[in-house]
């Protein structure tokens, strides 16, 4: 029963799980862990797996076989979906405790690949607006700046989500959104809606802070996945740079 799965089937399940995790922003060690756990519960004898933010290389051998099978998957899109990370994590635990068999696991993984996020876009834009307003207050802004920051952050996030459909370069969407944020903040102060441009802008760009990248970078570095940690740090830095440039353009031109 345990050895009933063919090696190619095993590889497919492992790589699918790894791909889902990596695309959703899981740490490198979690991806390697999950793959190793799935593989060993499928009766695989030797596993070598290398994970970087853009690639998974997996090589495994069944007992009694002479050769290793190796497969490589490239990861092209990366986003943040902690819900999916939790689901895949749960699934791999269940499999290793043999609560559910591998066919079932494969079905569930395929379904997770189709399912989208638990929150609709409207709700995410509202959340971004709320976050912006709250951060303006936290950075010693006055209550008068809450409303402009609320609107500004919502608009910025909306443009970010909208432009992501047409532009595949993420940094460009971020740059565009932060440009809009700068312009709207300036306009709000111009028309007497807000008091301080700086506080409104700071609050409104907060939804773009690459929090998951930062925490991943640190935990990857600490766990010894040096290349992954450096890559994620570079990605986080690029995001910050894009936001800064967008705002800088507005300030310089205005």
């Amino acid at each position, binding site marked *: 029963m345990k050895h009933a799965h063919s090696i190619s089937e095993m590889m497919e399940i492992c790589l699918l799980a790894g791909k889902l995790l990596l695309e959703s922003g899981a740490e490198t060690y979690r991806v390697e862990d999950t793959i190793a756990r799935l593989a060993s519960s499928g009766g695989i004898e030797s596993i070598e797996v290398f994970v970087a933010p853009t690639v998974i290389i997996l090589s495994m051998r069944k007992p009694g076989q002479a050769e290793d099978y190796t497969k490589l998957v490239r990861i092209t899109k990366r986003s943040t979906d902690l819900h999916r990370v939790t689901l895949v994590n749960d699934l791999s635990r269940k499999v290793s405790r043999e609560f559910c068999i591998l066919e079932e696991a494969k079905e569930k993984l395929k379904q997770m690949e189709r399912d989208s996020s638990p929150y609709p876009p409207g709700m995410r834009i509202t959340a971004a607006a709320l*976050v912006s307003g709250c951060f303006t207050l936290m*950075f010693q802004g006055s209550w008068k700046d809450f409303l402009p920051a609320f609107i500004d952050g919502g608009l910025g996030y909306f443009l970010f989500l909208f432009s992501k459909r047409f532009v595949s370069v993420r940094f460009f969407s971020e740059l565009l959104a932060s440009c809009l944020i700068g312009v709207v903040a300036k306009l709000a102060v111009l028309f007497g809606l807000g008091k301080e441009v700086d506080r409104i802008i700071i609050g409104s760009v907060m939804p773009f802070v690459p929090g998951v990248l930062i925490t991943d*970078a640190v935990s990857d570095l600490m766990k010894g996945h040096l290349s992954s940690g450096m890559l994620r740090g570079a990605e986080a830095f690029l995001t910050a740079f894009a936001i800064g440039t967008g*705002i800088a353009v507005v300030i310089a031109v205005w």
Partner: protein
Amino acid sequence: MIVAFLVSFMASAGFGILFNAPKKALVPGGLIGAIGWVLYMGLSSRNHLAQVFATVVASFAVTAISQCLARIYRMPVLAFNVSGIIPLVPGGIAYHTMRQLVESNYIAAIQSASQTFLISGAIAFGLGLGGTIIPIMINKWWPVAKQK
């Protein structure tokens, strides 16, 4: 202080939604963020070094609570500590750095840039310290229930 707690709670929970955190983790994530922020506010003064120190302590606390909650809820740590770390990110100082650069005040820009780097380093240090020490302590005093 109560207002600061509520506001940072909402900000952190909102971030949970932006990161597609599982619904069960939203409220705990918000609470962690609020605790980290209040700790930071309480410890930091106008002094430059105190700000860095407060960031280390707050991000360590955030990580420690996240590790415990991850064990209780049986979820990845990532679902909790990300939204908790966000309020500590030096967005304001980073903004000032950029603004000074645009206005050609290079000395002032370098000053706030080094401050930004120190605070981001402090976040990383607190995260790394918490992520290394706390799991060891948890495993020692609070072993996993026997898995069947």
